């Protein structure tokens, strides 16, 4: 009987440890980003180029995460990318002429949307569109321009 109890205890301990490890991996090692609100409103912005922005990327204002990208689609009529993202409803006083830019966190980090406040008295709400989008900075394009410039200078 004692033997069986030890086996059962060992098995229970093992499975509990496994579950704890899985829980740790899913919650601590993956992107929590500190944003998990259900009470949100959706906003859209059009970008010429989204770079490598992905759905679930954070939306930050003044460096604080206030929302998350939900969808990125290509608009075949206007030939640009429509990025939809949700913002936590508690931030309902963001001026509607705020600009949105696609930024990179660190040199090799992932891309996110950074918003800069405008001065309008009208606030962003469900279905608003941001008028001042700034596309992602594509490093290859910058290098290309720089090389073109330096080669034309040398002539």
């Amino acid at each position, binding site marked *: 009987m004692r033997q069986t109890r030890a086996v059962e205890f060992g098995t229970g301990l*093992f499975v509990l440890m*496994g579950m704890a490890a899985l829980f740790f*991996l899913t919650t601590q*090692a993956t992107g929590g*980003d500190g944003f998990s609100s259900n009470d949100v409103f959706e906003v859209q912005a059009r970008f010429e180029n989204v770079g490598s922005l992905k759905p679930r990327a954070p939306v930050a204002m003044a460096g604080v995460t206030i929302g998350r990208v939900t969808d990125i689609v290509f608009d075949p009529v206007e030939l640009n990318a429509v990025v939809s993202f949700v913002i936590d409803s508690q931030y309902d006083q963001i001026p509607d002429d705020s600009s949105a830019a696609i930024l990179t966190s660190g040199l*090799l980090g992932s891309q996110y949307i950074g918003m800069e406040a405008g001065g309008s008295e009208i606030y962003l709400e469900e279905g608003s569109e941001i008028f001042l989008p700034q596309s992602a900075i594509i490093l290859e394009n910058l290098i290309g321009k720089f090389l073109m410039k330096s080669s034309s200078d040398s002539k």
Partner: protein
Amino acid sequence: MLRDIYNAMMEFVRAFGAFQLFFLRLLANSPSIFFKRFSLVVKQVYNTGTLSLVIIMVCGFFVGAVLGLQGYANLARFNAEDSVGTFAAFALVKELGPVITALLFAGRAGTALASEIGLMKATNQLSAMEMMGVDPLRRILVPRFLGGVIAMPFLAAIFSAIGLFGAHLVGVGLLGIDVGAFWQLMQQSLEIGDIQEGIVKSFVFGVIASSLAVWEGYSAIPTAEGVGRATTRSVVITAIVVLIFDFMITAVAL
């Protein structure tokens, strides 16, 4: 000479087919054993899982620590040493966790299963059970197979988590990477899908490793030499099959 090669190939195809049939019988009998004789399965989860904990945890810790060191040495060239956490997490969760756990599992638990069953066969215990009207497949083989399948994903998760802890200890403690950057960059790039990939892999490897170990023991030549060879074969074949499947799952997941 040619005749030998021909015979060897025919024998391989025959053994492969025999394993498939055996595997189907294992699967067909698994649900009823799982629900009706769960205590047998628990005993095997203890044998394969709990008793493998020490080797898994020690190896996981040192693999993570090495990843921290190697990642630092290489990423520091690009001034990207903050990404050591990301590097270690991806390597552990998606590849090294499931694969090394499966190889250790084959060495620690697979050999135990193969030699135990092989010895039962060599000492006619399996035949004796059949005489008593007990199906050894259901009483002996299926619980061991299920125990391995259940234990593997947990072992792999423990391996990855302890590995991350090792990488953290080396990266943050020894090499002085900022603790915030270490975890935050990891959290930004690792997604739930990556962890799912790791779980799927470890589950598939669990099925492979335990079914092969059980099969090798069951089909062993019932002599001392035969049991020894079956034990060796279970490790060799499991290692090969696990690495082939690892490549295929990764190719599909990308």
